[in-house]
């Protein structure tokens, strides 16, 4: 190892200190959770178990002492919040006011000063009992007004196993997810959605960039306009789309009917498939999935557009000029100069958009909620974890999603032409 001189070591130390804040946050919120997700996927955790089980005790005074020598009877309704996880070392500490003497407290209790410490030991899951305690009231209990007529103060403590940190592992989650009837169709829909959304947004972006790669009045405004779908909040545009595509009162359906393009309304977002009769050829279009892909292409074409436009403007004009001298037309120039020049940016865009679309949750969730054949893997993660309240199965789905993406990336880098 190279040894660092004093200056260099100081500099390295300074760099370390400067990097620590960013590193800590990213580690805690991104790297550590990725590991945790992997961990949870091997555990049987239900949504309701996330909150650790705790003892709950309600105090009720059954009988108040009237005069010295009488008994104070208190009833405690005690239960374990969890139905199946046991609580260990349940300890209740009751603060006993002056003038009360425990008569029959039953359990393993001991008096320490003014506190009565009761050791209940283990409460099984679903534990639910009524405990009764009797105290004898002495003269001083009545002379001191503070304690009389009130319930006693208490605290209760227990140790419960944490579902996340224990060391019980299972493969059940993976078995459940992989054997589910929905898994493979979901993967299929994810792949179609990802390819469709990626290619759609890149093609639209390519066309838009071609349109704006010229000097004309109002170009700056158009460029700004074209970015609208990308910068607007997803929740606003998704709700707007589902509103104007509505089959009953939506504007799009009304316009299609008015211009005579359609005879009946189409539920763009809730119809699984749609038959098109194209010159006698029956085509079965997965309608909701296509609509979601159209939305995805619409929303993200500005991203591709900006990258492609920036690259287009950097293509040296001599290339086109010499092609023109050789008599090349516009299409030849596009195929033989523009496309090769754009190849790097197009492959990068494809990679980025593919990954992001593959992981996309919000858009599909807000448009269809995963209904009508649009359930993608991220939606399935959510459905398993929160819809079915099975955190473990959700985490297993997320791990599978991660693995599929990793396999894709490996294939991509293995087969893609030389990168720069």
């Amino acid at each position, binding site marked *: 190892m190279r040894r660092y001189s004093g200056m260099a070591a100081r*500099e*390295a130390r*300074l*760099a370390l200190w*400067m990097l620590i*804040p960013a590193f800590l*946050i*990213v580690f*805690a*919120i*991104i790297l550590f*959770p*990725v590991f*945790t997700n992997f961990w*949870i996927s091997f555990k049987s*955790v239900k949504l309701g178990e*996330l909150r*650790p089980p705790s003892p709950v005790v309600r105090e009720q005074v059954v009988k108040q002492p009237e005069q010295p020598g009488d008994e104070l009877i208190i009833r405690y309704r005690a239960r374990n919040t969890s139905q199946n996880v046991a609580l260990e070392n349940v300890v209740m500490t009751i603060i006993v006011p002056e003038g009360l003497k425990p008569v029959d407290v039953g359990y393993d209790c001991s008096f320490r000063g003014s506190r009565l410490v009761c050791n209940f030991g283990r409460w099984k899951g679903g534990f639910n009992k009524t405990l009764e305690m009797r105290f004898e009231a002495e003269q001083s209990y009545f002379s001191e007004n503070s304690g009389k007529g009130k319930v006693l103060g208490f605290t209760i403590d227990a140790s419960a196993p944490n579902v*996340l940190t224990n060391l019980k592992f299972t493969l059940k989650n993976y078995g459940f997810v992989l054997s589910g009837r929905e898994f493979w169709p979901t993967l299929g829909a994810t792949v179609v959605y990802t390819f469709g959304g990626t290619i759609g947004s890149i093609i639209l972006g390519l*066309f838009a960039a071609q*349109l704006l790669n010229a000097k004309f009045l109002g170009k*700056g405004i158009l460029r700004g306009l*074209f*970015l*609208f*779908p*990308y*910068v*607007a*909040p*997803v*929740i*606003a*545009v998704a709700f*707007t789309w589902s*509103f*104007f595509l509505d089959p009953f*009162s939506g*504007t799009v359906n009304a*316009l299609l009917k008015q*211009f005579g393009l359609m005879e009946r309304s189409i539920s763009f977002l809730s119809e699984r498939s749609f038959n098109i009769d194209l010159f006698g050829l029956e085509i079965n279009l997965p309608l909701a999935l296509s609509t979601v892909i159209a939305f995805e292409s*619409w929303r*993200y074409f500005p*991203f591709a557009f900006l990258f492609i436009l920036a690259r287009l403007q950097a293509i040296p004009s001599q290339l086109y000029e010499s092609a023109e001298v050789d008599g090349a*037309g*516009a*299409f030849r120039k596009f195929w033989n100069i523009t496309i090769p020049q754009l190849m790097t940016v197009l492959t990068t865009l494809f990679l980025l958009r593919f990954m*992001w679309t*593959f*992981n996309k*949750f919000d858009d599909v969730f*807000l448009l269809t909620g995963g209904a009508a054949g649009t359930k993608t893997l991220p939606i399935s*993660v959510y459905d398993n*974890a*929160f819809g079915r309240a099975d*955190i473990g199965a959700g*985490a297993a789905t*997320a791990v599978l*999603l*991660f693995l599929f993406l990793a396999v894709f990336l490996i294939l991509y880098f293995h087969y893609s032409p030389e990168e720069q």
Partner: protein
Amino acid sequence: MANSVSKALIRRRFPSFFGIMVMCIVGLFSTIVVIYILAFLISILSPTEARVSIGAVFLAGVFIGFSVGFLKIYSHNSLLIGIVTGFSVGLIWLVVYNFRPFGFPEPESRNIIAGIITFPLSCLVTWKALKDINILRPERGHGELLFIRILRGFGMVFFVLIVLFPFYFMLSSSLKSRAEYLQDPTNLSISIARGLNQLFVGYTEVLNRFHFARYIFNSTFVAIATVVLTLIPAILGAYAVTRLYFPGRKLLSSSILLIYMFPTIVLVIPLYSVFSQLGLRDTLPGLLIVYAAMTIPVALYMLRSYFQTLPRDIEEQGLIDGCNRGEVIWRITLPLSGPALATVALYVFMIAWNEFLFAFMFLDTPEIFTLSRGMVTLNSQEVPRQYLMAGAVIITVPIMVLFFWFEKYLVSGLTSGGVKG
């Protein structure tokens, strides 16, 4: 002799078959574009519906192409003549089609105005499309050139339409009651006939009864706090990566963006679980730290790219003059990186403002809802769609205003970092 000369002249003056085809096709496409755009605009901006007869458009288009093409051959100051032709075509149309170019119910001034606008406009578009093209003897490349022009025309219309229509729809339906909307779903015009109070009822309801005023405040707070929480570690980190030497620098520098690629949905379950147990889930600090972590990698990457372009000499001069690193960053590096900081800050603001997934998963207490989370409460059967759209406008407008204000920065920022979406 004289006969053959005049024949040659006529031949030179008369377009070939191919030339006539070109004129007609260009005229046809231009007319179709113009008429259908106008019909669409009339449909959505007025209570009347426009029905266009396809056959009539076809005839008019061919006629316009033909006349504009010939005028172009025989006259040099044809713009005026083009408009005159347009008027005459319009007149013919009005007579033949019973004064109803867009199928408006009865002959009224609107029909005539529409006719007067439509046809000269078609002529002008045809004229533009035929520019620089030799109609008499079209050359080899001209067909291609025309095709591209037609494509460009359609493309422009298409893109402007798909980009603007959803936003216009959002705005107009936020100003319409359910009854008004159902009465004519294709009418998206904004009418102030019922008075301003009724017009903006969606906004007042959403802001007051649905507490959006509070959510605006929350969202603003979250977004600004995220910017601060992101910028500080990102500036320090980017500076360390570009200016200081330490083992593992190259590796770190190249793995920053890799972190950015992690699927967000993979983080949701563990963060939900752990934050629930730590009691951080339904809190704004919990949300803030997640947002900061999501934006730090890209912020660091963008700042790193920018710091690399800054000259080192000035900083070194500062160090020699006795400043320490902190002073150098504060007094020299940061003032020089104004534009980059603005870009990064805007992006982080935008991401935090627009974020939906974590806000949706984490926040349960209405007092701390952000706008994204608050929008979900409007998406129910009991709440009129008008309110939902008013909410959509409320959440969209601030980001659009910011965006237009700083468009220059944002464009450069998008391409330098590639903001995840």
